[in-house]
């Protein structure tokens, strides 16, 4: 079996919306609404019945945080989302670069991040 690794050099943060009611979410529409609002690139990476987790690229997390009210208002129109009084938006700091030369090899885990954390 052939395996190759490609490293994507992109800055991203994780944008999380909690306190929602989600059913029949149109992820494509949500990504487009938030991309238009934030003027950047957004990707839905995890969804439950109450929360949505997204990657947002090339943006300062503070810019997302200070725009919380506007973002909540903008997602109201998304198919499959009901905003509640408990709806909140949080945004993590940007990802931290790791040194790939110092990541242990498998078989500890298939995930390099996990291997790196265990090594660290």
């Amino acid at each position: 079996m052939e395996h190759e690794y490609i490293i994507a050099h992109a800055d991203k943060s994780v944008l999380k919306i909690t306190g929602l009611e989600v059913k029949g979410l149109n992820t494509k529409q949500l990504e487009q609404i938030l991309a238009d609002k934030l003027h950047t690139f957004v990707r839905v990476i995890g969804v439950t019945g109450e929360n949505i987790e997204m990657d947002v690229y090339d943006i300062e997390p503070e810019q997302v945080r200070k725009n919380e009210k506007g973002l909540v208002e903008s997602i109201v129109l998304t198919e499959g989302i009901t905003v509640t009084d408990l709806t909140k938006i949080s945004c993590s700091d940007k990802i931290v670069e790791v040194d790939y030369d110092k990541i242990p090899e498998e078989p500890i885990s298939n995930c390099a991040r996990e291997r790196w954390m265990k090594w660290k």
Partner: protein
Amino acid sequence: MDEMEMKTAYILPTGDEIKSGIVLDLDAPEIMCLIVRAFPQAEVTRLCPLLDIEDTIFQKISEVAEKQPDLIVLIGGSGGGHRFSKSLGKDFTHSALEKYLDECASHEIYGKNGHMWSKLVCGRKGNTTIINVPGPFDEAKAAFEAYLGALSQGKSLEDISLDMANAVLAQYPTGAAKTV
């Protein structure tokens, strides 16, 4: 499979959130559309979404492959998922595929934070080609379009996998990428 012919294809979405209807399955209809455009005579079946359980995925791949279709496409569960964040789904399609396939090629896309963003596997079992694509719509579409493009050029599994990985990579706003 004849590079220029596809008679039967199965689309197999994965993900607890897809199965429960929390998230609409936009990918399967798009992939079905792409197959039908490229192969108007193809019979394409979208199967019931699977939960994110490695053994469930493995068993279903085995069951579907016994029908000897030309193509099986698994959707979603291609990243590091739960291995990276407890709040993310469990990603098992790539590991289930690698356990099942005798012959395969794969490419892994990592972020600079060391997290595996996506692992694309392309392999064969008998006359059946089996691939996976990521869950996000744009990535799934790009990966599958790349697959069809590579297929039409008669490329090897390794080159098909590379084309698919590059197509997914192109969906990220990356300044640079390197292969290691």
